[in-house]
Each structure stands twice: as C-alpha cells, then as structure tokens.
C-alpha cells in the first residue's frame, strides 16, 4: 500500500482494516512485521491487513500523525477506530479487530 491507493484500499474498504505503519530502519518494526503477518493469517477474510512504509508514504503518515513507530491503526468505515503505538502482540491485535468486526 502507498499514498496513492490508501483511500481506495483503506478509507473505502468494506471490511475493517489493520494498517501497520513501519520503516525499514526501525528495529521494533522488524519484530512487529512477522506478528502482523500472523494476525493476517489468523483473521482470514473477516478483516484486511496492510502495511505502510512511512518513508515511502509521507502524506498518509502525516495525516494520521504517525510520530512513533511501529504505529498500528485499525480503520473501519473510513475512520481510525483504534491506534496502537509500540510493539503489540498477536492476541491484542486480534482482540481489537474482533471488537470491530
């Protein structure tokens, strides 16, 4: 995902979507990445999961005021409904997605 398809993929998504804002230079993000992938597998087609490189997508990162990474935002109906800052475990993310499905 990037700035160009953020609106169609996230804001206009018919399902809730979890977006992992990361950077390639960020250690904790590299640990968060595989956890988010596990969430994607476990949650199946009930919700979507996406990743955004904050360096490659400055507009979206600024718009949602991503100031510390990893930041994970769950969007539903075009709105950010939950924001996590810092490393998150699989279960916490799945629990939050389940709340908005």
């Amino acid at each position, binding site marked *: 995902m990037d700035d160009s398809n953020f609106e169609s993929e996230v804001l206009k998504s018919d399902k809730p979507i979890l977006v992992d804002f990361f*950077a390639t*230079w*960020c*250690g*904790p993000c*590299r*640990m968060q990445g595989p956890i988010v992938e596990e969430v994607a597998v476990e949650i199946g087609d009930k919700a979507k999961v996406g990743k955004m490189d*904050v*360096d490659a997508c400055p507009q979206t*990162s600024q718009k949602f*005021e*991503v*100031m*510390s*990474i990893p*930041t994970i935002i769950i969007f539903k109906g075009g709105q950010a409904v939950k924001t996590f*800052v*810092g*490393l*998150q*475990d699989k*279960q*916490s993310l799945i629990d939050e997605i389940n709340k908005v499905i």
Partner: protein
Amino acid sequence: MDNLYDVIIVGAGPAGLTSAIYCARRQMKTLIVAKSLGGQAALANDVENWPGIENISGFELMNNFKLQADKLGLEFNFNEVLNITKSGDNFVVKTNKDELQAKSAILSFGLTPRDLGVPGEAELKGRGVTYCAICDGPLYKGKVVAVVGAGNSALESAEYMSKLAKQVYLLSNSDKFTADPVLVEDVQKISNVELTCFSKIKEIKGVGKVESIVLADTRDEEKTKEIKLDGVFVEAGHQAKTGWLKGTVDLNDKGEIITNRDCETSEAGIFGAGDCTDTTYKQIVIAAGEGAKAALQAYKYVVAKSSGYIKPDWGKCKTVQGEDVNLNMVK
C-alpha cells in the same frame, strides 16, 4: 489450574530472553511479559563484545535471541506489569490487561529512559514526546525539535537530529553540558543546533500532539518562555523503573533490585537478572549470564516447592527449609 505458569519473566532483553530459553529447556511452563523486545541492546549499532561473534548489530543479536525463543515455543505477552502480589504459594502478576498466576517470577526488565516528570509529558508520549532519537528521528524530517539532556547521549542525539530536523534546541538544566568536550565542541559548530544552559522544561503543550514547550530559567524560575515545536527528545539518562515493586522486593538507593549471587531477591520465589538489578556492570553478556542463573534458580525453587526436596543435580540435596536430605528416604 490451566493458567498457572511455572514462571513469568518480566522483560525481554538479553536477561529476560536468556532466562526464557533456559526455563523452556527445563520444561517449565513459561510466559514472557514485556513492553518491547530486545531492550536497550536492540538499539546498539554494533556489538563487538558478545563472545564468539566479532561484530553484530544489537538488533540482529537480539532478534536471534527472539528467534531461538520462538523455536522453543515460548509465549509472549506485550503488556505492562502493574504489580506482583503473593497469593498463597503463588504470585499474581497484574498487567494493564489481565491477571496472571505463576509459581515464580523473574524480574529482568532492564533500564528505562528517565522521564522529565513535567505536565503534558505522559499524555503526549508517542505523540511528539520520544525517548529514542534513532528510533523516531526520521519521522521529524524538516521539523523543529528539542533535545533534553546534557550528557553524551543528548549531544549525540542532537547531532543526529541536526541532519534531519530544520532546527534543534539542545537544553541543559545546569550551567554546562557534561558530554565529552570534543563532542560538545562539534555540536556547537552545527548551524541549526542551539545550545542553551539553565533551561528547564516546565510544561509540554499540545492537543493530540506536541505543539510547544514552556521553558523556565533555572536561575529564576519566574522567567519563562514558550517555543513552538513538533518534537521533544528526552535524553535524560536511564533508570531502573521499580516504583511498582516497592514493598514487594528490596531495592537499593538507586531503585535497583537487590539480588544475591544466585539472583534471589528479598522475596522467595522472585528472582532478578540484568540491568534492573544491583549488578555492578551493565553489559549484554552479563545480563544474559544473570538471566541464565535466575532461570536455573527459579527452576530449583519450583521443583523444590512441588517435590519437597531439591534434585541432586543442583548441588547438595536439601529440603526447602535448608535441611540436608537423604534421598533414599524421600521418594
């Protein structure tokens, strides 16, 4: 009880992850509760004193620890522990999300960046207030930031941020910068870094994100001024954040957990390892070693509690009360 762990390990840096690996290899039902992975070690650019590996990045080294823990099937929970209380023979570990029970606990949560303790700081943490320039710095490209601190880490952060940010204010609350003089001289030459002494943050302001700081002159606190900016990088050193353990285990005057050479704390069943303890040297290899010791001692404790005696491969066979046991009698 299903959710009763043999051991809960608090922290996932070198000490915590090593403890976890040792506990798993002893077949203990283990849970690691941590706010992040790899601790301070994961932020080191180069580690050149981990024996057997000439040079490795701190992140890669800690990621190897984590991958090894994953292979052993270790369970992680990335929450914050609020307190530990005794309940019968077990301990209740309360986190910001749930209550967990364990027969023993290992405290290995390392050191935490020191807070400024000013209004607005806690509310705006992660919203412009940050404690790690190399983690969050690149998100402040072209912005205005303050770096708070006078030591080497503050000066290094200011130098790093000067390449990214438009303007950097470097604030010392005393009459000088205590970092290496060569480093101070270098930073003074950078055109977009403004060094200020006698300058103390009184308040961090902003709605949803940092918008400004209120500075007071430490010689006359009535004199204040407000600076508009986007980020505050706190580099005020590190501390063992153990306020939540007061009354649970004994702490020294620096707030570090007092441990004996077997990593036991003042509370039987709670062990300590690594930088959050009163160990003299804060080093990755030492923390890992202490983590191993704490795990073996926790194993010994849990086994002794359940069987009434300590297995002979852990030295002389004794009862939990410390009496020598003839193993032929206790079967």
